[in-house]
């Protein structure tokens, strides 16, 4: 709990890390000043790109005591404004799932290499990043908690599968390796409440530790204060649930 006579400082900068296949990709990194030990969080940006909201969210986690990294999953597409880069990715049907998983794993490995990490790493993603967060913790060991916010296309029909997204993430549920927090909106159409129920049933079937919250009067992206989808009450409650969840599973050393 912050009190007004406490010292507070933060370092935030762009860095490079090793992503999928050993590729060098850029990432935004923020951490509290001091020797720690700090838990870590990998943030996975949404389909609109590696944008300002994600750099802010990275700093927000650092503000709450986490060494936080947001890899640029579109790093290989070239550089320009986040919108221009994301428009290219949108036209190409998103980035390949295995590449995204490798980049997110790279973020986790970077955090684990730091001297001031407490040994606990979480992952947080929204939209396509929520889907990729779930996909990653089902395939990669090394995460201690995951937050999936309105991950679209976790449940996919066969005609939605592509060479870039060849397997529906739900089919990897058995491999889920850490507790999962899911936040969803009742008015969302991707994922629909029905798809979230299918997702939840699969987690129950495999006896996984999870916590899902479905918000009324909220749709897709209700955290995004710069979009009409923003829902103040639901967003405040959602952030509170995230920090409670990460506090439970990430605070404290191994």
């Amino acid at each position, binding site marked *: 709990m912050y009190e007004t006579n406490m010292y507070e400082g933060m370092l935030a900068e762009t860095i490079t890390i090793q992503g999928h296949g050993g590729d060098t990709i850029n990432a935004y990194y923020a951490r509290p000043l001091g020797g720690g030990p700090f838990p870590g969080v990998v943030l996975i940006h949404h389909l609109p790109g590696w944008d300002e909201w994600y750099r802010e969210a990275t700093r927000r986690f650092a503000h709450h005591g986490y060494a936080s990294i947001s890899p640029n999953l579109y790093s290989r597409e*070239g550089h320009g*404004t986040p919108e221009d880069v994301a428009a290219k990715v*949108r036209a190409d049907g998103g980035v390949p799932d295995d590449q995204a998983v490798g980049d997110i794993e790279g973020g986790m490995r970077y955090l684990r290499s730091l001297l001031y990490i407490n040994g606990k790493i979480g992952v947080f993603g929204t939209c396509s990043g929520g889907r990729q967060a779930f996909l990653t913790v089902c395939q990669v060991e090394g995460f201690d908690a995951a937050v999936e916010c309105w991950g679209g296309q976790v449940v996919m029909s066969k005609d939605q599968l592509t060479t870039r997204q060849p397997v529906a993430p739900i089919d990897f549920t058995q491999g889920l390796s850490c507790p999962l927090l899911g936040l969803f909106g009742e008015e969302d159409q991707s994922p629909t409440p029905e798809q979230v129920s299918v997702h939840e049933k699969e987690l129950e079937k495999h006896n996984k530790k999870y916590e899902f*919250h479905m918000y*009324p009067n909220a749709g*897709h992206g209700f955290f995004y204060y710069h979009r009409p*989808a923003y829902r*103040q009450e*639901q967003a405040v409650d959602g952030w509170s649930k995230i920090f409670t969840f990460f506090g439970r599973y990430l605070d404290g050393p191994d």
Partner: protein
Amino acid sequence: MDRTRGQGARPEEEGNVMCTMIVEKSEIAGCGKGPKGWFPLRQVNVSYDHPFHAPLEHALNIDFVNESEGLGARVAVELSPESARRLVTVILAALARGEAGS
């Protein structure tokens, strides 16, 4: 799963279709005016997905691009579905009149 309490509902037009990955592409010829001036167009990408700027949760997005000139060589519009249909209608009408008179 719990059903967390929330505040009042919003209008239907703010309903959401996101992460659709719905995109149609075609080669085109012409010119577009981007942030650095006019450039030759090579391709149009039409998606039904996230708009970046339009205050809509789903939009018909049209990107006129030329990747050989960089990712910034892009002329973008984000339209409501109804506006997109109107655009199709007026384009076809103009083409029909122009080609009938040529």
